[in-house]
């Protein structure tokens, strides 16, 4: 009998087949799938906003503001899966206190906080004028004392909104966005390095891993921003239609702007999607062609056990189908919304197939392990490393965005234009 105080990590969701070492379990479970997925969304959202700020892609202006603020909302959530995964969550700060620099994970805190600072300062420069305006606007209005107080703090005393000062702000935004691109890529490429550098794991070990991760990160980031943007704009459209009737000019105006933004963003999405798929296919072909010792077991996992996950769900439904949907003529918003949803699913499946697929075979190459994600939790462990934890991680950025957006409105530009 196993005593109740004794907890074997992984026992509840791992089944073994043929020969595996006794200590082998699915140690890195669903939260480690969520970690690169969320980091990817952060990095992708930021790169999208930088396309406007650095490369002057004016057509992305509307989306740029939104994706910048949204990437801030996503940022704390990118660290959440790690916290939920740790067996000793109270020691989560140790990598910052005593970093052991030969480990890829030790850099996480440093890269993550550098990136956080860049995003925060860029947002501050973008919204400084808004903060100052709010401070003046809310003066003397009853009931908004606290709100005004927050805005005063947010200005950090920089109340100058002269032309010259604003020009400086703009310059600072460009610089921040420019520094931010390599840092965002590093943040995510480094997540790929964590996997790619594990020499014990035949599936993970590849120098292409960081690059593949960056490309798919940008894909997922752009897709999420597009999807969220469409949803929010649709919501606005419905609100306008209810208030002023379907045929109202404001409804048509929202629709026109929305389509324009989405068309431009789709172009970038397709470019990165092609790059991501090419690299993944290259990796696959190379493994098959070189046929190292591990290829036998990898082949039986890829073409056998995980065939549906990899070729049907990831490449088929997650990549190829949305690719065709986006390229098909007479693009509609609904089609784009479905395609971006599928792409998000495809990138998630890619993370799944890397993390879980990498543990689907024994290190002995003589057996297999299967992961059964806990759906209904019966203790804290099966909650945080099960469906419950996933849902928590997925809804958190939206809750955060709702709060952050109260102070840095990133969706108001359309109404201003009307």
């Amino acid at each position, binding site marked *: *009998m196993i005593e109740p105080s004794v907890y074997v990590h992984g026992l509840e969701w791992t089944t073994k087949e043929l020969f595996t070492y*006794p200590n082998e379990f699915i*140690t890195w479970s669903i939260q480690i799938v969520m970690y690169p997925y969320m980091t990817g969304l952060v990095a992708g959202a930021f790169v999208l906003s930088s396309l406007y700020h650095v490369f002057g892609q004016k057509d992305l202006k509307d989306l740029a503001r939104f994706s910048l603020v949204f990437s801030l909302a996503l940022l704390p959530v990118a660290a959440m899966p790690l916290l939920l995964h740790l*067996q*000793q969550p109270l020691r989560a700060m140790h990598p910052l206190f005593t970093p052991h620099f030969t480990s890829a994970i030790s850099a996480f805190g440093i890269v993550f906080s550098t990136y956080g600072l860049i995003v925060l300062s860029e947002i501050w420069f973008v919204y400084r004028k808004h903060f100052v305006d709010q401070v003046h606007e809310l003066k003397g209005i009853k009931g908004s004392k606290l709100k005004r107080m927050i805005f005063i703090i947010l200005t950090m005393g920089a109340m100058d909104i002269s032309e010259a000062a604003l020009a400086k702000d703009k310059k600072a935004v460009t610089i921040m966005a420019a520094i931010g691109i390599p840092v965002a890529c590093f943040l995510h490429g480094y997540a790929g390095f964590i996997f790619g550098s594990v020499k014990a794991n035949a599936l993970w070990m590849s120098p292409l891993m960081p690059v593949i991760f960056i490309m798919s990160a940008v894909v997922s980031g752009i897709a999420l921003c597009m999807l969220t943007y469409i949803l929010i704009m649709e919501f606005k459209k419905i609100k306008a239609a209810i208030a002023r009737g379907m045929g109202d000019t404001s409804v048509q105006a929202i629709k026109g702007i929305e389509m324009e933004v989405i068309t431009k963003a789709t172009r970038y999405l397709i470019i990165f999607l092609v790059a991501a798929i090419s690299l993944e296919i290259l990796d696959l072909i190379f493994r098959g062609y070189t046929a190292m010792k591990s290829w036998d077991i990898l082949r039986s996992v890829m073409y056998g056990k995980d065939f549906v996950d990899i070729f049907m769900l990831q490449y088929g439904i997650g990549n190829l189908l949305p690719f065709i949907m986006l390229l098909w003529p007479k693009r509609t918003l609904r089609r784009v919304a479905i395609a971006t949803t599928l792409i998000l699913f495809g990138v998630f499946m890619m993370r799944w197939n890397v993390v879980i697929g990498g543990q689907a075979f024994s290190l002995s190459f003589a057996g297999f392990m299967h992961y059964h994600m806990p759906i209904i939790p019966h203790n804290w462990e099966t909650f945080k490393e099960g469906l419950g934890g996933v849902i928590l991680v997925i809804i958190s950025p939206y809750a955060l965005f709702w709060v952050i957006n109260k102070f840095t409105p990133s969706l108001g530009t359309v109404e201003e234009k009307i």
Partner: protein
Amino acid sequence: MKCSRRNFLKKSLSGAVAAGLPLAAFKFLSPREAHAAVKEANLRWAFIVDTRKCVGCGLCVKACKKENEIPYDVPLTRTWIERYIVTKDGKTTIDTPKGGRDGFTSKKVRGEEIPDDQITKAFFVPKLCNQCDNPACVQVCPVGATYQTADGVTLVDRKWCIGCGYCIMACPYGARFFHPVYRVAEKCTFCYHRIKKGMKTACVDACPFGARQIGNIKDINDPVAHTILTERVAVLKDEYGTKPQVFYLGLDERVR
């Protein structure tokens, strides 16, 4: 002189260079090098497993579990025994029920019995942490909670391990796991608490056939070192560059 930004940066830079130059004149020693230069430079623990002597009784696994307080009935163990059965069709069947703790008393492998006349060879392979010279687990620990001692044993600091599992993923031998009670990374320590006092490890003491031996590879008069130097020994998975220090006698190429 005016303290302008340009001046400040200039001075700081030249100051840093001036301070850095004399420092560069010193040779930086890693803690291990420094330690080796002072004492215990001629001690490095190594292990020999003679697979030809192992009968798969499981006494070593039992002894290890008790000595190192790994709950007896959990499917985790610091050391284990694998059974290899090679049949006439060239297939290899491997199993390790309960890590071989209760011995291999049944001919059944995962519920199926292989007929005796089909078997061409069969043998047992005890496994434990290889106490690598270049341990992948130590390299990937983000907080330095797992470390290598001067005499070559890799240990885990239970008070500092954050439980990320990176070392478990990095070990090619599957030697590591989460301790079911302490919830931190756990592994074979060569019974460091015993060998430090001049005793043998629990598994070595428990083995009735002398299939396991521990000794100092740097001492030429040590029987273990002597065997490693004079016999034909092999290590597990040397392609990973981990430089394992558990040496096997009579290792079959089918052993994973």
